[in-house]
């Protein structure tokens, strides 16, 4: 791989896609070595489907699976009385590229491996 390619997809870009289309798109890009940053999150059943599809696509030598990380944010209800954590960003990449991820509240730091060097993404 010559460089690290990152694709940022807004929630708008994903809302018209079916679960199958989303998963196929994610797997296709991640197998190409890309890192995807999605606005929002996948549903639990989409996450399970993504893991299943990943397992089917693993070819031992070249593609060993994926890493998924999420950055959460606090969201207040309309009247501001209650607060809940929702996923702001979902980062998905090839497991052999995404090397170190440090996660704290409202902060995610990732080091991706490109060839013999490392690229840091915050």
């Amino acid at each position: 791989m010559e460089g690290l390619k990152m694709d940022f997809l807004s929630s708008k870009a994903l809302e018209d896609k079916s679960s199958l289309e989303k998963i196929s798109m994610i797997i296709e890009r991640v197998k190409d070595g890309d890192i995807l940053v999605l606005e929002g999150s996948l549903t639990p059943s989409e996450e399970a489907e993504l893991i299943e599809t990943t397992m089917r696509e693993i070819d031992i030598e070249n593609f060993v699976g994926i890493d998924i990380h999420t950055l959460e944010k606090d969201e207040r209800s309309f009247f501001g009385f209650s607060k809940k954590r929702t996923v702001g960003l979902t980062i998905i990449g090839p497991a052999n590229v995404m090397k170190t991820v440090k996660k704290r509240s409202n902060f995610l730091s990732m080091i991706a491996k490109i060839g013999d060097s490392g690229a840091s993404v915050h």
Partner: protein
Amino acid sequence: MKHTKNIELIIMNSFFRRLLDKLLRRRKKVKIGLYGHPNSGKTTLANAICEDWIGTPLGVISDIPHETRSVYKQEEVVIEKDGYKLYFDIIDTPGVATKVDYKNFLRYGLSEREAKERAKEATKGIIEAIKWLDDVTGVLLVMDSTEDPLTQANITIIGNLEARKIPFLIIANKIDLPESSADRISAVFPQHTVVPISALHKENIEQLYMEMVRKFK
């Protein structure tokens, strides 16, 4: 003649009581899946439960990840606690992960061929474990309390259990190790019941049985 009628009545009563017991038992029996990361101690826990209530262990354990690569099942386990009986089947599933790299197995002394074969089987096992989420009626989600619990595999399993309304307990396993922290798991998942245990030494296992009867009866 009257005596014969009485015997028939007793037999009929007994028959219907057995039938009723069987129906009630069948209704109450649940399928409890053991889920979690590879090497979190699922099979060690399944063995502890089976040894305590059946008398024999269920599966083989080892330090090498993905030792359990297909689903193992023990039917008709009965836990008796505080006057209640919980009838259930144990479904010991392969560890769920988002990646399987055969090179990780080489450090345990496996040959390259063995490591690749293990990796292939592990991917199939993960698919099988996810498919079983459609069939289980309760789950023990086993976490290694020496590790960070906030992983994608745990998040995906919990999200799916919540979406499917499957009752579950989080098991903070390996509390016998000095670096363990069941509190960290409770802090990450405050809305769920966390039971700290050591499946290997059966530490706090009675508490787990009590929680299982409460949750799944």
